[in-house]
């Protein structure tokens, strides 16, 4: 390589040593992936299936599941859509904790041990990692997750100060992945409990200055299966892939119910 300075600006081309590719070689490593399988058509019992895979340092748990499904066993079933932490389809229990498979890098896990992947808890398993989300969405619908306003529709936008917007900013981030609700020990044993996700989404409207149905939502959550079921284990806050302060939001709703102040 020439190091002499010339009048002209050098071409914006990086010269690499021979044998080095674009961004450098991506390291690979071997992992053991263990998936909790369940197929009601063949057996009532769940079992562990396991594969040894060679993965890249940039791969996520979702990539490992893809590799299994595409190259080893096409019958492995799981949900995913966006693959980038947006749609909320692929919450699952990874090494005993609820995570999105598409946001969990393999290199951040202990790859010297098998990586355990199980369906989220507390919802009926349909097949392998797929659970029936209906009870989860039923609770979500019950808290009226939409803007309710009294009076006439305004002719211009509904104004809101940045402080008013800030009040519920955290709970707007929810992608309805169910990682929080299915990490809750109360929900595991009492499927009637509304669960953290429904409360988070109620919070999003209760504290929205433009909404007029806050009192109704507080009444719904004052139910015996509502916010008072929460035992503050913080599993939900630790599971949320969007970093929502779930337990804090639930506490705020509890206090709003007691004081009827929003």
């Amino acid at each position, binding site marked *: 390589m020439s190091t002499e300075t010339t009048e002209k600006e050098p071409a914006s081309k990086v010269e690499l040593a021979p044998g080095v590719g674009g961004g450098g070689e991506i390291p690979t490593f071997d992992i053991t992936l263990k998936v909790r399988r369940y197929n009601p058509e063949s057996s009532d019992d*769940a079992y562990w299936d396991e594969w040894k895979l060679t993965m890249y340092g940039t791969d996520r748990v979702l990539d490992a599941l893809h590799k299994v499904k595409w190259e080893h066993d096409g019958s492995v079933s799981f949900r995913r859509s966006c693959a980038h932490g947006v749609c909320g389809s692929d919450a699952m229990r990874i090494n005993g904790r609820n995570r999105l498979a598409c946001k969990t890098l393999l290199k951040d896990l202990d790859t010297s041990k098998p990586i355990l992947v199980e369906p989220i808890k507390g919802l009926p398993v349909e097949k392998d990692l797929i659970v029936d989300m209906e*009870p989860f969405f039923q609770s979500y619908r019950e808290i009226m997750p939409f803007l309710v306003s009294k009076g006439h529709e305004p002719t211009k936008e509904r104004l809101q100060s940045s402080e008013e917007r800030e009040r519920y900013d955290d709970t707007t981030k929810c992608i309805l992945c169910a990682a929080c609700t299915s990490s809750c020990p109360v929900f595991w044993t009492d499927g009637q409990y509304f669960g953290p996700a429904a409360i988070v989404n109620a919070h999003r409207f209760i504290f929205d200055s433009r909404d007029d149905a806050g009192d109704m939502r507080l009444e719904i959550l004052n139910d015996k299966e509502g916010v008072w079921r929460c035992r503050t284990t913080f599993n939900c806050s630790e599971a949320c892939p969007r970093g929502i302060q779930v337990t804090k939001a639930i*506490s705020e709703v509890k206090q709003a119910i007691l004081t009827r102040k929003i």
Partner: protein
Amino acid sequence: MPKTLSPSKLIPAGTLYRGREGQWSWVAHRITGVVIFFFLLVHVLDTSLVRVSPEAYDAVIGAYKNPIMGLGELGLVAAIVFHAFNGIRVILVDFWKQGPKYHRQMLWGVLGLWALVMIAFSIRHLSHVFGG
């Protein structure tokens, strides 16, 4: 709500959920709460014996004065002290604005206070139980 599917068949058991401080402090709070409840139940029964037969009451209370019961009392006090301090922590998590943010630090506080109280109490109590 259609949430009534029998869980045992439909939800195959897997590994234990790896919750952190909050989950385990809750487990401990529930266990200590139930332990205290059963103690109080027995305690109400043995105390009410005094109205039935003071002699029987004396005999039962006398039976508590052995080292095994002494250690049991130590365990009971340990449970009550944890439950009480952690109960205050849970109340703060719900009603103090900064509570959820500092729940973990508050748990270390609870365990620290618990250790202090238990060391002080153990010295006094065990010297009574084994000292004579």
